[in-house]
């Protein structure tokens, strides 16, 4: 019997269909590179492209550098030392992730501008009139500041988990060999954490390249804003696809660099047993410094913007009708929950396929879907709109038959937005599910089948209950990301369908910063709760 044909079953067919659907937008971009160039493209290439590349890379480079410095130092402090407020800070330092950078950007702009709390206090209380340009953050350094504050948790989170779980014996050996804390940090901690640092930083880099909210609000020209402007401003879809392809080229280049950096020197461990790193108690000045350092970062990256948002909510209470806010909240939660559920179901199908089918393509194919996460939202939007309009044309006779007058049904529905979310965020859910499958291995599944239980029943009775943690984490991560998402939602939402994020963005863009605060605070609140659930309950240190 053919070994490969024996792998063809419901899981295989389902998984391949899902992978093809997820991969279509990548193909449409690649083919876009070869389409004939318009006049606009010649102009963009001649005068603008270098600027886009320069500003995008400047943002990426400095944000990556600062997030590593802050993320790694915090991870090391929390993983290795005990000091006042440490157990609170351990998870509180992740909370800045709940503030989407565009909300952070307009909140900080509100804090430091002429009518903001800082300049007002200086003027009214101390009679100092500072040079307003000193407080101007709507520029490239300002954007780097914002990205660093709200994205450093990626580096912190991944590196801290690695250090607390995996490094005990190495660090203890270094200590018994008479090495001091700085030497251990430089010669042991940094080299062994390299893989997790690079893992965290690549997420930061992808987020920066994908961001539309901050750069649009600050008026900085990057690839994301250029794609939007070329598409909507110039009405030139082909050129915007070419821009997107260039951006994808940069992303693939960065991913290759990441592979090379991680490649040769992957440190692996002879044991899979997890032993937590015992904490060293800090005393005196060191303890004060550690507490102050973590407290300052937590304050500027979370506490200050949240307090400012709360203040604005109180000031504008009643200005935005409560009913309206409830509608946005309901829309946001419905669309995020529905998309996250579908992503998890699809991830389970693809993940199980990759696990049960013994063929190299079964391991390789799912990796292709991760590219979706590197494509900016604006580009996925173009691809999805094009596909759905074609689908509507194809289905026109069916619409006519069932008595629908309009020729556009799917392309004006929520279904289109949900499809785009699935393409964009599949990688997040899939990573979680894949690591869940890796963790449980194949013995339990084999044991169940040896007890006479079918594949499908094994999946529901053994795999799903054992993967509960991975399923919940995947769902929470995707849910939070969709809640904060901006470009896809702005372009693909049905007419008059607003979510918390689009409403907050619109208010802020119209310089109604205070009115944007209610929706923003709700996003931050829901995301913060989700993050606390995720990290406090599911990712605790090993007992």
């Amino acid at each position: 019997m053919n070994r490969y044909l024996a792998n063809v079953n419901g899981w295989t067919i389902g998984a391949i269909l899902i992978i093809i659907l997820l991969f279509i937008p990548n193909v449409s971009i690649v083919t876009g590179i070869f389409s004939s160039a318009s006049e606009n493209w010649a102009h963009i290439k001649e005068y603008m492209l270098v600027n886009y590349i320069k500003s995008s890379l400047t943002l990426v480079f400095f944000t990556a550098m600062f997030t590593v410095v802050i993320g790694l130092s915090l991870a090391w402090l929390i993983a290795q030392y005990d000091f006042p407020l440490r157990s609170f800070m351990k998870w509180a330092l992740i909370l800045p992730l709940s503030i989407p950078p565009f909300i952070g950007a307009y909140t900080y702009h509100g804090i430091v501008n002429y009518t903001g709390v800082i300049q007002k206090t200086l003027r009214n209380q101390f009679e100092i009139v500072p040079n307003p340009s000193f407080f101007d953050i709507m520029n490239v350094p300002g954007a780097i500041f914002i990205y660093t504050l709200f994205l450093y948790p990626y580096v912190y989170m991944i590196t801290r988990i690695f250090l607390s779980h995996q490094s005990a014996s190495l660090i203890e050996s270094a200590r018994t060999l008479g090495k001091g804390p700085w030497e251990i940090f430089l010669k042991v901690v940094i080299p062994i954490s390299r893989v997790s640092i690079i893992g965290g930083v690549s997420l930061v880099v992808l987020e920066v390249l994908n961001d539309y909210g901050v750069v649009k609000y600050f008026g900085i020209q990057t690839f994301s804003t250029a794609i939007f402007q070329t598409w909507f401003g110039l009405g030139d879809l082909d050129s915007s696809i070419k821009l997107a392809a260039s951006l994808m080229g940069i992303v693939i280049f960065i991913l290759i660099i990441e592979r090379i950096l991680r490649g040769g020197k992957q440190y692996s461990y002879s044991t899979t047993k997890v032993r937590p790193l015992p904490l060293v108690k800090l005393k005196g000045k060191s303890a004060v410094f550690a507490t102050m350092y973590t407290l300052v970062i937590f304050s500027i990256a979370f506490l200050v913007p949240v307090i400012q948002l709360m203040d604005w909510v109180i000031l504008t209470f009643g200005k935005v009708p409560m009913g309206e806010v409830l509608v946005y909240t309901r829309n946001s939660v419905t669309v995020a929950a529905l998309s996250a559920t579908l992503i998890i179901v699809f991830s389970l199908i693809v993940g199980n396929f990759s696990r049960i089918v013994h063929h190299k393509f079964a391991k390789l194919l799912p990796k292709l879907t991760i590219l979706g996460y590197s494509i900016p939202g604006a580009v996925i939007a173009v691809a999805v709109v094009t596909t759905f309009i074609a689908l509507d044309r194809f289905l026109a006779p069916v619409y006519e038959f069932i008595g629908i007058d309009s020729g556009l049904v799917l392309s004006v529905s929520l279904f289109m937005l949900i499809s785009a979310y699935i393409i964009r965020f599949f990688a997040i859910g899939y990573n979680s599910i894949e690591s869940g499958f890796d963790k449980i291995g194949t013995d339990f599944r084999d044991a169940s089948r040896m007890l006479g239980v079918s594949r499908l029943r094994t999946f529901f009775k053994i795999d799903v209950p054992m993967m509960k943690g991975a399923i919940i984490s995947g769902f929470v991560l995707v849910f939070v990301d969709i809640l904060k998402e901006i470009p896809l939602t702005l372009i693909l939402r049905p007419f008059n369908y607003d979510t918390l994020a689009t409403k907050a963005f619109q208010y802020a863009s119209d310089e109604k910063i205070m009115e944007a605060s209610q929706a923003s605070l709700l996003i931050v609140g829901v995301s913060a709760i989700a993050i606390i659930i995720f990290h406090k309950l599911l990712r605790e240190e090993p007992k």
Partner: protein
Amino acid sequence: MFIDIQDLSFTYSNSLTKAVNCISFTIEKGEVISILGRSGSGKSTILRLIAGLEMPDEGSFTLNGKKIMDDRTFIQPEKRGIGMVFQDYALFPHMNVEENILFGLSKMSRKDKKRRVNEVLELVELEGFEKRYPHQLSGGQQQRVALARAIAPEPELILLDEPFSNLDADLQVKIREDLRRILKKANTTAVFVTHNINDAHALADRILKIKDGKIDKIGRPCDLLGSTSELPNTGEVIFEELLPV
């Protein structure tokens, strides 16, 4: 004969050499067979091929007159009526002892299921442990639950993958005796894989020595390994140490 395996071969997809190379042997009903070999010799792969967890390149396998696999047939593991005890036991952590055993008993009335659970727990001397979860059991107890779970559906053949490797040396001797008693009492045909020469000697009616994916020798323990008195009296004597004996 009860089990007939002919010309069984298997290659892993990431390898060019055969992990199992043209292996043939037969087993009588009620017989306990040990597959003995160094790590990487292909002994666990043979077990997985018999279980149906891997698909062979070629070969045939007949169990009690029923064709399980050949060029045209491949019966899925869940339809083979073969039980298996895994090296790390693979007890479902979200189910208690009773639920673990019940999991394999689908086509029975509730009363019969309950009776069968009690029977097998009595056989492995774990009455009263029904409501315990795997993490609340010792290594030896977990191993006996895994055995009870595999025996409960009354399989025609039971496979054991390194059944003692996760146990302390003292416990290994005790459990080994228990296992032989349980297998013989239940009149179960069994194939178990080990790298420990003492396990093979104490448990098996016949031994298959495997080297580089091929059968090196087949025979009774006393013929292949000498008498028990010639073996060092330790819990952990591994194949590599005694191979030249």
